C-alpha cells in the first residue's frame, strides 16, 4: 500500500527517457539537439542506477558522462562544420533496409529473451562507496593501474594527434 506505486512509475518515466532520448540521438538531424538529448539519456540512466541502489555509480555516471563526455562531444561538434549531412537525405539511403533488417532480426529476439530473466528479491544495503573502493584498490588494483596508464596514453595521444605541425602550417600559409 502507500508508496508501492512510486518505483514502477519512476522506472517507467526513466525508461521512456532513456530509450526515447536514445532514439532521438539516432533519428534527429540537428547535431546539437542530438548531443543534448544524449546528455538527457545519460541523466535518466543515472536515475536508473539510483533506482537500483547504486548511488555512487550514478554520481560517477553524471560526473563522467554528462559533465565531461557531453562537453567533449559538443566541442567536437563546434569545431567541425556540420553541413555534410544535408547533401544526402537522412532516410531512404541504400543501407537502411539492410541495417534495419539486421538490427531488428537480432534485437527483437534478444529483447524478448531479456524479459525472461528472473532474480531473487533484491537485498537491501550495498552500493556504498566503501566496499566499491575496497574492491577497486585491493582485488582489482592491477586493473586500476592499467586503467590509469590507459588514461595517460589517451591524454597524450589526443594532444599529439591534434597538435598543429608548424612546418605544415607555414607551408600552407605560404601557398
Amino acid at each position, binding site marked *: 500500500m502507500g508508496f*508501492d506505486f512510486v518505483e*514502477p512509475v519512476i*522506472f517507467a518515466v526513466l*525508461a521512456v527517457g532513456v*530509450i526515447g532520448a*536514445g*532514439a532521438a*540521438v*539516432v533519428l534527429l538531424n540537428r*547535431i546539437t539537439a*542530438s*548531443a543534448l538529448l*544524449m546528455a538527457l*539519456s545519460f541523466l535518466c*540512466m543515472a536515475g536508473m*542506477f539510483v533506482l*537500483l*541502489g547504486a548511488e*555512487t*555509480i550514478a554520481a*560517477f*555516471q553524471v560526473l*563522467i*558522462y554528462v559533465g*565531461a*563526455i557531453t562537453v*567533449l*562531444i559538443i566541442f*567536437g561538434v563546434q569545431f*567541425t562544420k556540420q553541413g*555534410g*549531412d544535408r547533401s544526402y537525405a537522412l532516410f531512404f*539511403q541504400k*543501407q537502411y533496409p539492410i*541495417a534495419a533488417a*539486421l538490427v531488428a532480426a537480432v*534485437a527483437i529476439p*534478444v*529483447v524478448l529473451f*531479456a524479459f*525472461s*530473466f528472473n*532474480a*531473487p*528479491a*533484491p537485498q537491501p*544495503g550495498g*552500493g556504498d562507496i566503501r*566496499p*566499491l573502493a575496497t*574492491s*577497486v584498490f585491493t*582485488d582489482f588494483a592491477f586493473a586500476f593501474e592499467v*586503467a590509469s596508464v*590507459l588514461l595517460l596514453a*589517451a*591524454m597524450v*595521444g589526443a594532444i599529439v594527434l*591534434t597538435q*598543429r605541425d608548424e612546418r605544415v602550417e607555414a607551408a600552407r600559409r605560404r601557398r
Partner: protein
Amino acid sequence: MTVPLSFYVAVSAGLFFIGCAGVLTRRNAVVILMCVELMLNAANLALVAFSRRFGAVDERGSVFVIFVFVIAAAEVAVGLAIVLSAYRNRPVIDVDEIHQMKG
C-alpha cells in the same frame, strides 16, 4: 512492488540496439561516437542491474562499470582527436567521404 530485473535488462538491450542502429546508419562521425557511447551506457546498465540484483555484497559488477567509464572516456577523447585531425586535412565530417585509404 519492485521492478523485476528483466525490465532493466530489456531497457539495456533496447538502448544497445538503438545505438547499434545509429552506428550502422548515420554518416556523421561525431554522431557515430555518440551512438557508441549509448551502447557503452547500455552495457553499464546491464552490469549494474545484475550486480545489484544477484547479490548486494558482490561488488564486482559495479567495479567493472567503473572501468567501463574510464575506457569510454578515453575512447571518446581519442576518437574526437582523430576526427578533428582528419577534419583538418580535408574539411569533411561525412564518413562516407573519408576513404583515402581505400583501394
